[in-house]
């Protein structure tokens, strides 16, 4: 049983890492095709990719949309979670349902609905319209994480602050936000990750100013190329650096 377990673990890791390993390995291919045989080590594709202005613009757009839409989603989600966790409102169950609902709907459907609406309203597509879509998908995530993190300890501390004379704005700023800092951080991080990697909404809701996943998508049309490998490897590198940083920060956090 024990040997079998370790064998299974090894096979699972092999399966999980196989495509990534191939991706990274052939990004160094000294040739035109990112498949065997390996013809030698070269950094030419990285050189090409980093000098590609369309890709770099897309990268900037991705970062912009990810950070702005996540920040907006976080603020709205946090305020709504605070309100619904604290005040007994008529229909608060329904409101929670409405706020969570976009999480259970395919991104394609959200995108199609927004596209229909924007078309009917005569709104022209841009990074802004894609950003609106990203807030729609990140808002339930931020709301749910904040709402789940608001325990009794939080509520009692807020109550105590109010008792000591704090206005609602100061309760939010001095008590709720600092106490929820880990949850807020996690929600923001996840939002940025999802938004950064989101394809279908951006694909349908932008016209000229595309983001990185859409730009990579259009690179695929011209078939296999080590340049795509190079971009993918770079994205992977950035992502795992961010994940490891998060992990280390969480690990070193005093409890």
């Amino acid at each position: 049983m024990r040997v079998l377990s370790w064998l299974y673990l090894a096979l699972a890791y092999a399966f999980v890492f196989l495509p990534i390993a191939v991706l990274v390995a052939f990004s160094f291919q000294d040739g035109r095709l990112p498949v065997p045989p390996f013809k030698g080590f070269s950094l030419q594709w990285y050189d090409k990719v980093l000098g590609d202005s369309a890709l770099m613009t897309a990268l900037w757009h991705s970062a912009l949309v990810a950070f702005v839409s996540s920040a907006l989603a976080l603020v709205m989600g946090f305020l709504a979670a605070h309100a619904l966790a604290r005040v007994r409102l008529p229909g608060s169950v329904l409101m929670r349902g409405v706020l969570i609902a976009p999480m259970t709907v395919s991104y394609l459907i959200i995108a199609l609905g927004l596209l229909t609406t924007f078309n009917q309203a005569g709104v022209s597509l841009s990074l802004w319209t894609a950003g609106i879509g990203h807030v729609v998908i990140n808002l339930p995530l931020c709301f749910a994480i904040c709402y789940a993190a608001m325990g009794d300890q939080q509520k009692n501390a807020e109550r105590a602050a109010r008792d000591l004379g704090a206005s609602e704005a100061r309760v939010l700023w001095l008590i709720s936000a600092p106490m929820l800092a880990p949850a807020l951080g996690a929600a923001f991080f996840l939002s940025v990750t999802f938004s950064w990697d989101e394809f279908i909404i951006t694909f349908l809701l932008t016209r000229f100013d595309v983001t990185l996943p859409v730009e990579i998508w259009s690179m695929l049309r011209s078939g296999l190329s080590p340049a795509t490998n190079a971009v993918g490897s770079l994205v992977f590198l950035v992502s795992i650096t961010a994940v490891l940083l998060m992990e280390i920060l969480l690990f070193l956090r005093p409890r």
Partner: protein
Amino acid sequence: MTLQRAERRLGWGLAAPALLWTLAFFVLPFLAMVVLSFAHMEGRQVVQGLDPGNYIRAFTDWSQLNALINSVEITLTVTVISVVLAWPLAAIIAWRVPPRFQRLALLLAVLPFWTSYVVRSYSWLLVLGKNGVINQALMGLGVIAEPLALASTRSATVIGFVHFFVMLLTLTIYANLIQLSPNYARAAQDLGAGRWATFRHVILPLTLPGVVTGAFLTFVLCIGDYITPQILGGNNELTLPQLIMLQMGRSGNFPMASALSVVLMAVVTLAYAGCSRWLRLDRI
């Protein structure tokens, strides 16, 4: 009662931005889409109306119905395979790996999760392609003479999906397993249950919420995904999202695309109804 009224006003004020945003950019667009699904096309012109024609077509026109069937088949296959593969992986990490390495083991197991979704599908193309790693390796070893047609098949789509969802499910099942007190198994064994009986009657039922939550998530994400079938499955057999994109892009038939989206939604809702008893969506 004035205090309570002030409280409520404040509550509404704080919840308003999120609620209005969701109403304006999710609920209304969705309703607009439902309305549009009852319209029809005359030439390149959308004619509003209350025409169920799109839905009738979705279930009678073989090319449309086929996409639905493909999607459901692929999604169910992916969900089952992913659960079967992920459960032992999560269990090994939770029970065999020493506790101080578990976080690391888990982090490694889901590391490719963090790469770009588009790139991940693309990288499977490098492995499964006609002159990809597998074919080259098998031909090099002399196992096969001609390259196998691995890419642009349903199998490729399934492999690409399984790769992604095994990672996701490992996380949800692990989270469930690690919460189980080892005393459950001890109690069962103490009462005379064998290894299999312990697993079958105690451990498995206790992990059901994690499994079902993960499986539902897999189902929802899988059936609505356009990228993986488009890159790995090609255009040989279309899935529902591919057909929706096709209706929208090539023919500009937004009413038909909307109707198919509503059908997609309905399938997800059915799946939700089917497993809502065990679902813990608040725990994701």
